[in-house]
């Protein structure tokens, strides 16, 4: 079947193709997307929450959201994998801090980051190794500040309180860490 004019000729099993199949009610498409990204979403949730039961609930909730909102997904504005990663992090932090969902809707709606080429397991493993290597290359204090920010959702003042460092020092560390990561990932 030839693509209609103006439509990108995506593979049927690309993320975008699968989303279209989910809109049409195709259960197997949801299964493929789950197999592709479920582990990644769960890993983030487990790392943030520590508890596997709570992490599984977050994972389930995010995939419910995925199919409930599939008709609204706009691939021109952001990749599905970015959306899933942002949702995984935000939902988990909201839950860990016992907040009602706060950030993800507007974050996800306004997301148009890089189109991540991480559809295969090998590509995901390689990306994980690159990110871990980039974080490992940071000085210890900068890495700790970034991890508290990203995985615990702490603000700069909260990080200062947690580590006992002056606020100015924390700000400098976060700026330096982002500057280093920017050179690797163009943040």
């Amino acid at each position: 079947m030839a693509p209609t004019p103006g439509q990108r000729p995506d593979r049927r099993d690309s993320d975008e193709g699968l989303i279209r199949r989910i809109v049409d009610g195709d259960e197997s498409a949801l299964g493929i997307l789950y197999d592709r990204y479920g582990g990644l979403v769960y890993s983030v949730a487990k790392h943030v929450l520590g508890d596997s039961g709570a992490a599984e609930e977050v994972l389930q909730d995010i995939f419910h959201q995925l199919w409930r909102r599939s008709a609204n997904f706009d691939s021109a504005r952001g990749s599905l994998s970015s959306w899933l990663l942002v949702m995984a992090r935000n939902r988990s932090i909201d839950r860990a801090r016992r907040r009602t969902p706060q950030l993800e809707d507007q974050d996800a709606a306004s997301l148009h980051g890089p189109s991540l080429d991480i559809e295969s397991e090998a590509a995901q493993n390689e990306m994980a190794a690159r990110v871990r290597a980039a974080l490992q290359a940071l000085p210890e204090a900068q890495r700790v500040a970034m991890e508290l920010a990203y995985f615990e959702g702490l603000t700069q003042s909260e990080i200062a309180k947690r580590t006992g460092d002056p606020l100015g020092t924390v700000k400098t560390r976060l700026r330096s860490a982002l500057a280093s990561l920017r050179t690797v990932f163009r943040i």
Partner: protein
Amino acid sequence: MNEHHQFEEEIALYGLGVLDGADKAELEGHLSACSACRDKLAASRGTLALLAFAAPAVKPSPIVRERILEAFKARGGGPIGSAPPAPERRGLRMAAWAPVWAAVGLLLVAAATWLAVDNRRLSRRLSDLELAHSQLAAASRELEAVNARARAALEVLTAPQTVQVDLSPAAVHPEPHGKVFYNPGKGLLFYATHLRSLAPGQTYELWLIPAQGAPVDAGIFNTDSIGNGQVILPPLPSGLTAKVFAVTIEPQGGVPAPTGPKVLIGSVS
């Protein structure tokens, strides 16, 4: 041309969620008026999402997949419209009582304003309740699943046809794999997966084998519990043209020239 260059750093910090107090208020004031910076924020958040890959990889229980697909089937599949159903509108029978209707009109305007405010409050409350409900339902399903699994496990243990088999370590392990990123002017990054753990007194050593001359020590490393190892920016003579990279097993502390067995090797293409 970009007159908002000074905000770039703040935007990345805001995207990470660390700004608070006056820093946050100042940037939000700017963002509300600047679409270019809002676009930068969205792009920055998208890239920051990559940090999620730093979380150690773990696998969820297979039950979760079943639950998600069952829920999808139960709802008939496909998306659910995000817009709430339009409220039913009722026509009002007009009468010739103009002053009364004017008063009623004023009352309706006041009531509509109050209802709009109350509606927003109720919507938030509804979201909270929906979340609580979905969490309770999930907990209940979890309990049912645990009970069902316990029964199923007992049946396996007690059924007459059940066989018992002792398993030993398999001969086949996942293949070790390594990857080098090397730039003669900027340095070297290396990571490896599925390496076996070494005996005490041994270490892995990475070698840069130049186009001419002896192998150069590019750092020693050990592996974590699942066989991952890495070497980040080791000290190397600048400008070396690499031909081959290799990993060998050496005595603790490393050696100046390779002596042990090669476990990984790769040529520069």
